[in-house]
């Protein structure tokens, strides 16, 4: 197969994750050929006969959109690779401010620039919002993860390149987590950096905002495993994706209510900075914003600043 890897608004981490299958890459390249990938090779335009294109990054401006449309036209199959491509990812956070606020801050607001520093020329607008790849083009497969993990790519890449559909786990991070639920007496929301969590018990039960229950798995629950709460980098769980009335915010609140017996209103009050703690990776997704219970619309409109 002829493979292309396109980069939109992202960090190149997803392209590196493809290299991170290490020597397996040599096996892949025995049967298949990479014909376009600006990070690793010099071909400047995608060729016309791409069999499978991995698109990484979100769509944030007209150039991203143009490239996406072009690669969709030229490729038989399009894979949205990584959480940015699937849900907008971190790039979506720029929707918390207007363009002007961003420029003013970056070019004139930080301490190392002089007052009245030049804001570069004519500033082209972002698209009116960030988009996930699937919001703007037909996508054949979604591979979530920021970035997707080696183990998981090793499982699916060979099959995908053979044109087969891999059967995959669809569980949440919690399903892959080895922690047990402890006592949740006197539950109080903690900040994610406070104290030292105990290694045996569920982090959410201990008061840390762990997003395992609302996050798609396939990472081996690596963060809870290393005593760090999950911050949702694989994107929303299947539950949320399937049900229009379920959203990251209302589902995590419900989960805490079930765990603690506290009234929902109190739990909601204890939430803090939901833009950066709950919607970090999904704020740029039209699908996530369109959910009737989504808080994204409020965040984008007012900013939570």
């Amino acid at each position, binding site marked *: 197969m002829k493979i292309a890897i396109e980069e939109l608004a992202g960090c190149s981490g997803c392209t590196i994750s493809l290299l991170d299958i290490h020597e397996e890459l040599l096996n892949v390249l025995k049967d298949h050929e990479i014909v376009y990938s600006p990070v*690793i090779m010099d071909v400047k335009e995608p060729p016309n006969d791409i069999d499978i294109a991995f698109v990484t990054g979100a769509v944030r401006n007209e150039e991203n959109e143009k490239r996406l449309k072009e690669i969709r036209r030229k490729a038989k199959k399009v894979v949205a690779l990584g959480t940015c491509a699937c849900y907008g990812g971190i790039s979506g956070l720029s929707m918390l401010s207007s363009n002007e606020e961003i420029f003013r801050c970056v070019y004139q607001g930080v301490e190392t620039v002089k007052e009245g520093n030049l804001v570069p020329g004519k500033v082209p607008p972002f698209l009116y919002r960030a988009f996930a790849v699937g919001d703007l083009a037909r996508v054949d497969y979604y591979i979530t993860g920021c970035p997707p993990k080696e183990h998981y790519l090793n499982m699916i890449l060979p099959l995908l390149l053979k044109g087969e559909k891999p059967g995959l786990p669809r569980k949440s991070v919690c399903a892959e987590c080895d922690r047990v639920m402890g006592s949740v007496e006197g539950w109080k929301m903690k900040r994610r950096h*406070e104290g030292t969590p105990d290694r045996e018990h569920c982090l959410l039960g201990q008061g840390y905002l762990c997003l395992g229950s609302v996050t798609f798995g396939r990472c081996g629950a690596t963060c809870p495993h*290393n005593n760090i709460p999950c911050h949702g980098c694989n994107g929303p769980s299947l539950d949320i994706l399937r049900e229009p009335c379920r959203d990251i915010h209302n589902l995590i609140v419900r989960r805490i209510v079930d765990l603690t017996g506290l009234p929902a209103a109190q739990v909601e009050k204890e939430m803090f900075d939901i833009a950066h703690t709950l919607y970090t990776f999904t704020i740029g997704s039209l699908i996530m914003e369109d959910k009737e219970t989504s808080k994204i619309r409020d965040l984008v409109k007012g900013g939570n600043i």
Partner: protein
Amino acid sequence: MKQMTISPVTRVEGHGEVRIDLNDRGEVERAHFSVVELRGFERFLVGAAVEEAPRITPRICGICPTSHHLAAAKALDQIFGAEPPEAGKKLRELMMLGQYIHSHALHFFMLAAPDYLLPGAGEGDRNVMGLAKGSMELVKKAIAVRKFGQRITEAVGGKPIHPATGVPGGVSHPIQESQRASLLQMAEGVLAAAIESWEIAHSLMDKIDPSVGLVNTAFMGMQKGGLFTFDGGQVQVCSPEGTTLGSFSGADYVSQMEEYTEDWSYLKFCRLKAGQPYRVGPLARLNIVNSMGTSEADKALAEYRKKYGRVVQTTLAYNIARYVEFLWACERAKELLQDSALTAQKTRTPVEGVVNRRGVGIIEAPRGTLIHDYTVNEAGIIERCNLIVATCQNNYAMDRSVEEVARRVIRDGKPIDGGVNLIESVIRAYDPCLSCATHMIKTENGRMASRPFIKICISGVR
């Protein structure tokens, strides 16, 4: 007036382009390296709970995420007033070594080497896949060494890309004795391979033309007692001739440097307060330090200095300097993996509330000095944030290097054979990380708006 554009610049991380203006005689009027992107992180981090910074900022760059992760964690140490315990410090160091090994190996073997090892190759073959056709052994070696770097990051950071374990006061989790043992075993083989391949880097010294992309700048880099280090030392600034101009740590950086903009690029530029341009990264660091502090790297450094002298301005020598650092990182990783303190259980000093309203984390990222500066309110919500990345600091030099090469490869309005790649290879030498410097914005037609250039007149250069 005609304009020529090379877009996208390839085999670099992120999106950039070269724009060359030609006069009616087909000669280069001026050439610029434009990054048509803007990083909005400094803005959208405002309002964030500061403890999220080490989780969010790695996403600035998927090649050097650990640098951002740990620069942010170091700033948090100050904000929450906690010193990591010994194992926490050592694990952070190991994580950074993983970063250096992966990033430098990726750049040297997979991105830059094809320019020098496959000089006649065409556009489709001048890359790591082309390299594999001629020398599979070399590519296997490159894969193995980079894998070692990523395995370290995964073991300590939880994930090879976007590690997560750096927390205020240390690292969230210890590593197991078995992990240490298996990494140490890998380290032996990797170090042997790294020593063996010094020959390739060494041979580049004869292959590259030292005048290509030459600029004359001051330099900035960290050192500790004259030795190479990426953390915990003083950042030193030296003149183009190598005399020390100053040094700083922490929030003092603002007294040494400033950022400015040019109308034709969205990427900010840095200069010293006195106005001189400077460079950061491998070339700069080797100019700053007296020695590396490990035996093989010091041997390599001696050969490098025999060829280029004590203070090196040669832009393409970045590639060789990078290899010297790569050797050092492999040696240091092996040394550190033998340290039993690495597996101690206490990796973290617990913290509670905000102790200091400001924290500045400075680290030498593979590409150069990286500064994360956060100011928070009493609740630990970010009020101000300043991120200074290597690529902004090298922006001026990169831009001038590009013009220098453009002048030599454009004849009668057209690039000579291989000319376009020569321009790109000088950009590549800096190993720019354009995502680090950005978030992308382009004009409607995908090009920078055409405006009269503002000529930069900075003392010492041109």
